[in-house]
């Protein structure tokens, strides 16, 4: 196997990672030591309080934040052994990401936001339109295609963010506090959607501080002070 590939037993392997930051003269560890695996098709929730390192962990998983030590393997790829351009392609091919506060592009319509990940794929305009409308229907917002994000409710924006994350059919969906700013009824709807996507074969890793959200997950990893707690 080439150096950028490693023998793996699971779709995602987090091997002894740590992440430190320099704050003035001090070194602060956002992640002290984490080691776990995720199998293909699993629904994992990572739960912890604010400052526990869970969002940092999600960024590391998504190829967005280089750990200070350890390895991240996804589909046998050593994510941080890839070049910067390869890592961008890795994100495009493998990862669908749902940010906290949705992070839709305000000057693009709902449909254009969903098509955004396809802008660099070379997929034809007709096919892009078909794929985008298909996922928009799947999340129940077919009629909202021409609207701008600020014309939607919080729950609707969350659904658009989900649609954008899955339009390219990535195998892994990362969700950062997907129900954080939603009321309980809307949150339940969103969680139901994530569960449905998982049942269709998507590996879902969700970061949350809400114990209710974890009900839908196959497994919960507890994080505190930069460590995964024994389960």
């Amino acid at each position, binding site marked *: 196997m080439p150096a950028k590939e490693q023998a793996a037993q699971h779709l995602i392997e987090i091997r002894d990672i740590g992440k430190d930051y320099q704050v003035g003269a001090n070194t602060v560890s956002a992640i002290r030591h984490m080691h776990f695996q995720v199998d293909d098709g699993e629904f994992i929730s990572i739960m912890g309080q604010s400052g526990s390192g869970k969002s940092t962990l999600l*960024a590391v998983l*998504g190829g*967005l*934040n*280089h750990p200070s030590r350890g390895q991240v393997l996804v589909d046998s790829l050593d994510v941080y052994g890839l070049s*910067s*351009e390869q890592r*961008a*392609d*890795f*994100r*495009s*091919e493998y*990862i669908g*990401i749902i*940010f*906290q*506060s949705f*992070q839709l*592009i*305000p*000057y*693009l319509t709902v449909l*254009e936001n969903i*098509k*955004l*990940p*396809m*802008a*660099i794929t070379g997929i034809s*305009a007709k096919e*892009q339109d078909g794929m985008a409308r298909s996922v928009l229907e799947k999340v129940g917002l077919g009629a909202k295609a021409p609207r701008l994000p600020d014309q939607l409710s919080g729950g609707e924006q969350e659904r658009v963010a989900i649609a*954008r994350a899955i339009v390219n059919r990535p195998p892994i969906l990362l969700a950062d506090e997907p129900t954080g700013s939603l009321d309980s009824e809307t949150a339940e709807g969103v969680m139901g959607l994530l569960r449905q996507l998982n049942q269709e074969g998507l590996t879902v890793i969700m970061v949350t501080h809400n114990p209710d959200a974890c009900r839908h997950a196959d497994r919960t990893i507890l994080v505190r002070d930069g460590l995964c707690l024994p389960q």
Partner: protein
Amino acid sequence: MKLYHISYSNLKRRKGKVIFLVLGLVLGIATIVTLLSITESMTRDIEERLDRFGANIVMVPKSENLALSYGGITVGGVNYAVQEFKEQDLKGIREIENRENLGAVAPKVLGAAQVMGRQVLLMGVDFAVELPLKTWWHLDGAAPAASGDLVAGAEAAAALHLAVGDVLPLGPRTFRVTAILQPTGAAEDGMIIGDLHAVQEVLGKKGIVSLVEIAAFCRDCPITELVLQIAEKFPNAKVTALRQAVMAKMQSIELFKAFSYGVAGLVIFIGSLLVFVTMMGAVNERTREIGIFRAIGFRRGHVMQIILLEAIVVGFVGGFLGFAAGNLIAWSILPVVIPSGTFAGVNLPLGGLAILLSISLSLLASLYPARKGSSLDPSEALRAL
């Protein structure tokens, strides 16, 4: 969805910033287009005047000049030792090597005479040669046919209260005014013009010629060579191609042109600086957006492409509007710069160059901001989320 959709949509929503960006380029491009249009109109104005002149070469007696200067400042001069030409010698003009390029040879005699108690400049010409040469002369009355016929310049006629049909005693002879010359704006307006030999008799300059105008047949003749050959034949003459005298005036236009490039270069530099600063600000504002792009898999090159495509659009619009504004300004202020001049027209190749220049400047000014934006660490950008 393509990357240019993102660029276009961003520009559409940030109209204020786009106006600012475009304004810098418009100022620079409009400046250079205005200046170049004006110099082109000035050049065309001179060339049109040249086309109107029948005579291409003027031969006058060489004179010595005593220049009066005080501390290096010349305040004028005194001409002395002026030797006019003998009419019989003028046949030498038709003996030069390039004689086939010669058209009309129009001799003139000049002198002052007393008319009705006033001193008037008399000019004697060969009307058969002179009238076809002076295409801009318009006569009110009949063209002179006999040696006793006169044409009065407009100003001379007004000063002496002359009308067509009036009889005028000059020296030992009596002449008849057959026509009044409409104003030409030149020296002829103040003259009385008669037959060459008749005026020679009045002035006591029999067989003498004061100056000669010589026309060449074709526009692209070797005028320089004609001038030198005639000058060789008449060593006591100062021979000047009219084109040469006019071209000397063109020098000041060339100087103005060189100055224009300098000024325009400075204004364009300032415009580009404005683009650079505005783009840097725009990239900083878009940290979050760039973070999202990078997070969903855009490479650095994709982010750069988005920003540079915006720069290309801004450059194109700036170049186009700058070209239009430059032409409009040139057209408006030309009557002030050249009172009788006309606008040379819209120079489309210049427009193409202006747009290319504007796009290039916009691209170069946006390169560093684009590089900076695309190099943003996605994790750093996402911390802004």
